[in-house]
């Protein structure tokens, strides 16, 4: 077997470490050059959650924390594929999800935004990609909220994701945005991504995937770092 080497981060689309408009990068971004290393067993492996028993409602944030009624807000489903840069699907990989409620409030104790909590919405969930790399989950469309980075700064609507993929080089934590959001042009976290990468973070409204009378739908694909292996299967 020839040696498989995973691609490095693609800085044409990945955000730089220091992005001063996003103020908290100033004291938290490493300043010294990264040390370039050869990938060893540690980098070419990673945690596998394939046999983890997800809860029956982990993939449905609109139902997984109901106390006394339906959560408030617009029910949506989000679906897509997990792939690598080679275009190969990444099956059975874990996707962790967290977000604000429809009013723009997080359950997190640190969030002091003066918007109501929803007793029937936690805002956390997870799902796995299937054998073909497809995933789908249900949730409530998150609201915008102010965050104090600069005068009257509001985060655009977004959902947080965490993915593992093939090994620790594939690790991805990101945020998905919604098409047409007027706040995107003012958001230094979104704008921290180079222009070529920004569209990759905006989901697409997907009329064909909507469920009649139940949920609107958005499509979002994840592309993790690929490798030098020649794909033997062209999907």
């Amino acid at each position, binding site marked *: 077997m020839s040696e498989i080497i995973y*691609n*490095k981060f*693609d800085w*044409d*689309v*990945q*955000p730089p*470490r220091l*992005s001063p408009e*996003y103020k*908290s*990068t*100033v*004291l*938290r*971004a*490493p300043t*010294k050059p*990264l*040390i*370039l*290393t050869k*990938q060893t*067993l*540690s*980098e070419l*492996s*990673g*945690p596998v*959650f394939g046999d983890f028993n997800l*809860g029956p409602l982990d993939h449905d944030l609109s139902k997984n*924390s109901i106390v006394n009624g339906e959560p408030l807000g617009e029910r949506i489903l989000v679906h897509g594929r997990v792939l690598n*840069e080679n*275009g190969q699907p990444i099956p059975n990989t*874990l996707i*962790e999800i*967290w977000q604000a409620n429809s009013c723009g409030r*997080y359950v*997190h104790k*640190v*969030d002091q935004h003066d918007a109501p909590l929803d007793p029937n919405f*936690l*805002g*956390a*969930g997870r799902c796995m990609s299937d054998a073909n790399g497809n995933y789908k989950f249900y949730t409530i469309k998150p609201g915008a909220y102010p965050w104090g980075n600069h005068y009257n700064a509001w985060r655009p609507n977004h959902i*947080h994701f*965490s993915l593992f993929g093939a090994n*620790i080089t594939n*690790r*991805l*934590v*990101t*945020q998905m945005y919604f098409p047409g959001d007027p706040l995107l042009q003012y958001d230094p976290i979104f704008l*921290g991504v*180079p222009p070529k*990468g920004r569209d*990759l*973070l905006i989901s697409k409204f997907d009329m064909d995937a909507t469920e009649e009378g139940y949920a609107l739908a958005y499509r979002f694909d*994840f*592309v993790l770092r690929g490798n030098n292996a020649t794909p033997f299967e062209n999907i």
Partner: protein
Amino acid sequence: MKQTPSQTVGPYFAYGLTPEQYLYDFKALVGNEMVSPMDDLNCIQISGQVFDGEGKLIPDAMLEIWQNDGEKQLFGRFGTGTDPKNRYVFHTIKPKSVDGQAPHLSVIVFMRGQLIHSYTRLYFEDEPGLNAKDKILNQVPEDRRNTIIAKKTSNGYQMDIHMQGENETVFFDI
């Protein structure tokens, strides 16, 4: 295809990624007990604090540890928001040397203020022979190697992480 760009984990990851540690009502996938301190006699505690460029303690970082010595594969995750000293704490075992490398843990650091996560390693100070020959450690300028070599404590090892400053931790482009 183009890589999906990274975005910050933000300040509100805890109820999604480390819910049980932060006492949220959601089952956690992983925690900081990579082995059980009760069951494994070889269990060690790995701990440290995370500091920003002004030397201030960072109370909202999340660390992940991955180790694979060919025999055991272990993964842990912990946020710095619950320990009284805002330490990260993991219970694990010391990995063996594999492929001639010195024993080490892979560490992934996430926090608000990082648009993309940082990778580092944790080596062990009581492995001077293997550390001296370790190919990756040898790529690090000599005066910075000590930033990723953990110090022995009574029950394990300790290594602080400095995002910036004189003792800035070595981060890797893996």
